[in-house]
């Protein structure tokens, strides 16, 4: 009977391959979410009634429905219906991106609302158009403020990416189960997966810390970075 340790050591390269898949899903989904979230936040704050109503509906659905369900609906339902030939990887990335986009929109909206109104007024007062004011004055400030909340979102999506296997993209968690089912070393394998996730989270959070310090401006004491 192989020992727990030898099983873990044997499985490590296989799991680490999976973490590459996990990492690329997370990075792609977070970036997609960033784009969606930014546009949505601007729409939610500055848009007209119809835009705000539609975006709120989007927020409600994507925050209210579990990601597994969304994944099923999009991968087997909507993408299929429109004949979109997305691979499992693309599909997961899009669904996770759209989900985190909703959460990020909420984060950014909060940040925009927390900016003093004067910032927008001052920009308008100088003759900037609304879109110039948003691009040059509002977004650079709120993206900075949002980094800590964004890092929370990152660690959540990192773990949500395990759902990729539901549609056949075997990332860390799925691989962990495969090895455990074959070797019956469940506990050791799950702990190993936990450690890998822990380091992935840690690496991401540290990178964001660095970014946060890099773009820091005197006079802000952003939460969570004393």
């Amino acid at each position, binding site marked *: 009977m192989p020992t727990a340790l030898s099983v873990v050591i044997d499985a490590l390269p296989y799991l680490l391959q999976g973490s590459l898949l996990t990492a690329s899903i997370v990075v792609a989904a977070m970036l997609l979410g960033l784009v969606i979230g930014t546009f949505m936040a601007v729409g939610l704050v500055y848009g007209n009634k119809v835009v705000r109503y539609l975006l709120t509906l989007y927020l409600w659905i994507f925050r209210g429905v579990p990601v597994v369900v969304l994944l099923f609906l999009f991968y087997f339902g909507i993408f299929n219906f429109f004949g979109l030939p997305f691979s499992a990887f693309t599909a997961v990335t899009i669904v996770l991106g759209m989900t985190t986009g909703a959460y990020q929109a909420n984060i950014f909206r909060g940040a925009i609302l927390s900016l003093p109104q*004067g910032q927008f*007024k*001052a920009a308008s*007062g*100088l*003759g900037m*158009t609304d879109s110039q004011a948003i691009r040059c004055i509002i977004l650079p400030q709120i993206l900075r403020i949002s980094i800590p909340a964004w890092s929370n979102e990152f660690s959540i999506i990192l773990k949500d990416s395990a759902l990729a296997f539901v549609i056949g993209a075997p990332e860390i968690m799925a691989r962990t189960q495969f090895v455990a089912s074959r070797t019956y070393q469940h506990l050791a394998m799950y702990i190993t997966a936990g450690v890998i996730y822990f380091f992935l989270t840690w690496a991401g959070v540290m990178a964001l810390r660095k970014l946060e310090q890099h773009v820091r401006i*005197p*006079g802000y004491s952003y939460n969570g970075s004393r």
Partner: protein
Amino acid sequence: MNDKHSILKCTNISKSYDDQLILSNVSVELTKGEIKVLIGPSGGGKSTLLQCINCLVIPDSGKIVIEDHPIHLTRKPDLYRLRQQVGMIFQDFNLFDHLTALENITIALCKVKKLDKPAARKRAQIELEQVGLADKATLYPAQLSGGQKQRVAIARALAMDPKILLLDEPTSALDPTLIGEVISVIKGLADKGMTMIMATHQISLINNIADEILFMEKGRIVEQGAPSVLLGKGNESRSQGFCDKLNDLAAVEG
């Protein structure tokens, strides 16, 4: 140039928020080089009026004509053009917190006036020198004192070559020890003939530079006249109580 010809003419400006009338049929006219001061109790509508003049708040009705060009209140490009010609200074400065003093000035020059970077920097440097802050160009707003922030805000507005300057209580967020520097910059502008309309209760500004005082209460201009008249001893009008208080405060300060 005909100095008596009005540079800005606002007629019958009205504005309400949630059924509450904040401004009712207010008219203001400015000729080149003229300086008007708005005074009156808190909530009287001074800030709202100033923001209506450059359409940061769009009036519900009324007409705005700048240098004989009427402004369409519903046409965005018209508003952008208006705001380029009317500079504004806020009570709490509203510098862009993520940009240095210099960048605060260049960003509008680049984006709005479409200057190229070097030209914008040159112009910004000149304006900073004018307000005595050439050496603070690379500091962020959080690293400046209140008086310095307000002076950057003034430099930023002036860099756009405005025809008119609106000032909304430019000194009231400042420590008593910092007010002096801002007052002297404003006085300098007055000396150079800048057309201005400002809300302030700073007696020294009112006494020394105002051509006319407008007393606002409950959304109307209830009284207007030269400082000597309104603040004079014999004034028996509606604004009397308020003006007495202003005079008292000045006396206490002395």
